[in-house]
């Protein structure tokens, strides 16, 4: 059940890592869908939408760090940076889908 890290020999609990990452994945997917809806609602177009997405990703990252605790996030995650960058482009498509859909619903029709 436990794997060894490369540099330091700390034993990690694989089930706990998987649990944490699946929670983060859930939050990230909801964040992408909902921030897409908000971007469409606000009527953002081209580059503003991309900037809004980056802001939303950063906000979610800060909120996850806040939940884990800014000083002891290393108890729950191995890397803080991969928490920010994981699935950035994968969620972008969810974001664009919701963005264009809600933009069409609110502003076009």
């Amino acid at each position, binding site marked *: 059940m436990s794997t060894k890290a490369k540099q330091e020999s700390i034993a990690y609990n694989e089930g*706990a890592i998987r649990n944490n990452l699946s929670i983060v994945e859930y939050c990230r997917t909801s964040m992408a869908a*909902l921030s897409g809806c*908000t971007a469409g609602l606000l009527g953002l177009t081209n580059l503003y939408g991309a900037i809004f997405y980056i802001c939303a990703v950063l*906000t979610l990252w800060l909120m996850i760090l806040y939940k884990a605790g800014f000083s002891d996030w290393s108890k729950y995650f191995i890397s803080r940076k991969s928490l920010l960058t994981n699935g950035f482009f994968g969620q972008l498509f969810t974001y664009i889908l919701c963005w264009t859909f809600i933009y069409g619903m*609110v*502003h076009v029709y």
Partner: protein
Amino acid sequence: MGSSALYKIILTFGFLSLFHAAYSAAQHRSYLRLNELDFTKLPTDIFIQALISLLGIMFGVIHVAGNFKEIKASADLENKSWETFRNIQSFYTFCHREH
């Protein structure tokens, strides 16, 4: 469980508020269309309401999703003593007292 209910309430209010903002934006848009005005930007109150409800929903979702577990393998063993692990019920003896 009390705090979890609080986050669910935050989440519900966030969704309702976001929907309300969307409806207001659509109405503003139809108002502009009827008066043949050009769309420049949304009214500030709708803008702020949408942003605040997005923040509220994100906050709620993070707390509703579940609690993090410690990833160190020794984390849940630290609070247990050796007696807990050595506890083998088949080896209990109750016949060691004199009657």
